[in-house]
């Protein structure tokens, strides 16, 4: 099943391919996505910035390649490192004049994290995020507190887990402890 998100990315890739042919540029959109797919997230290096949904679109413009990225959190300190990583990877792939533009809307959500990346997070010891869609409903917010969703331990799979701290090693993760295997672990918060 393809999500609207994946369809939009596929359409953008097709557009980029067509423009590349017209402009006589020899780096295909596939090669660009492949290069971008090799840029790790600086804080969670087992997943790429593409898998995390940070790279939103690529497009050839009159002046060269434009890569659109969106920050995960407003204050994410890894943003500059990510932009540099993207420039370096593209230069290696033969695109030296890439422009990296930051877009804020639509706001990044953990719902964009690819299924393969969720499996990689779990294997790395980080419990992947639950559904974020309904967390903050800006159309009709109720700031009252919600019941917490059950979080499964990435090591033993038990859902007998307890929140230790709302913020773990980074802003995007919470710190949990598994009551079954007694190990602490990071939970990638639905956002």
């Amino acid at each position, binding site marked *: 099943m393809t999500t609207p998100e994946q369809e939009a990315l596929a359409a953008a890739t097709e557009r980029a391919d067509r423009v590349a042919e017209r402009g006589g540029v020899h780096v295909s959109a596939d090669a660009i996505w492949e290069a971008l797919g090799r840029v790790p997230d600086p804080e969670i290096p087992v997943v790429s910035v593409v898998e995390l949904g940070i790279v939103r679109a690529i497009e050839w413009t009159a002046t060269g390649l434009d890569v659109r990225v969106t*920050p995960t*959190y*407003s*204050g*994410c*300190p890894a943003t500059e490192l990510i932009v540099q990583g993207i420039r370096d990877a593209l230069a290696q792939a033969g695109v030296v004049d890439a422009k990296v533009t930051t877009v*804020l*809307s*639509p*706001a*990044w*959500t953990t719902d964009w994290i690819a299924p393969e990346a969720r499996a990689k997070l779990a294997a790395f010891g980080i419990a992947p995020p639950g559904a974020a869609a309904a*967390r*903050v409903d*800006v*159309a009709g*917010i109720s*700031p*009252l*507190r919600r019941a917490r969703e059950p979080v499964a331990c990435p090591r033993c799979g038990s859902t007998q887990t307890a929140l*230790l*701290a*709302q*913020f*773990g*090693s*980074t*802003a995007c993760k919470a*710190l949990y402890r598994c009551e079954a295997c007694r190990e602490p672990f990071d939970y990638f*918060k639905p*956002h």
Partner: protein
Amino acid sequence: MSTDAHLLEYLLRLADSDLVLAQRLGEWVGKGPVIEEDIALTNVGLDLIGQARLWYGYAGEVEARLTGEGRDEDQFAFRRDAHEFRNLLLAEQPNGSYADTIARQFLFDQWHLLALCVLARSSDARVAEVAAKGAKEAAYHAERSADWVIRLGDGTDESHRRMQAAIDELWRYAGEMFVPDAAEIALAEAGIGADARALQAPWDAAVDAVLAEATLARPAAGHVQKGGKQGRHTEHLGHLLAEMQFLQRAYPDARW
């Protein structure tokens, strides 16, 4: 005043409250009661600094539309004196004990989340996109500070007493969040800003629910201390800025 003049004023209020509160949270670095809290406070501060930068960026563009020249985020943060800051008085109050820090954060977070959710529907696309992003972050802040109010309020006799005292002490600064001035009313009527008065009822409902769960009493309505949004601050802001701005004041434009 033009809509842009009101908007510049409004953006600085949002940005300054974020920045000043983040600076306060940063003062906890290395001194948190437990390491998880040390980390959590600075992560919340980091979110707020990120949001402040986005608001300052837009404020600079609006200022350029008005005067032909707009300041950048560093000029806004480091080259203005206390009377030019437009943050809420609540944001600049000292850290005090952990109960004071949590009470300040709780009262602010509940307002912040509501305000950003309204602003996410602003007719100004830039305001809407920055607010929509920030609202998701503020939801975690609000959840966390409410958890702590409950944990300390419904905790030991001492933690209950100190949490109640902190809420009582800071309550006078909360009212300012719901008192608009002409600039805010004009922007709310234009569909750009949030109507401060309309945030009061949902804030009351959320705060009352948490206080009840925390076995804490809602303070009686009393004198509302205000003026921060117009640049009239408590004595604490100058000291905060002296530390935050020292380097750029002593060595203008110094870079790493």
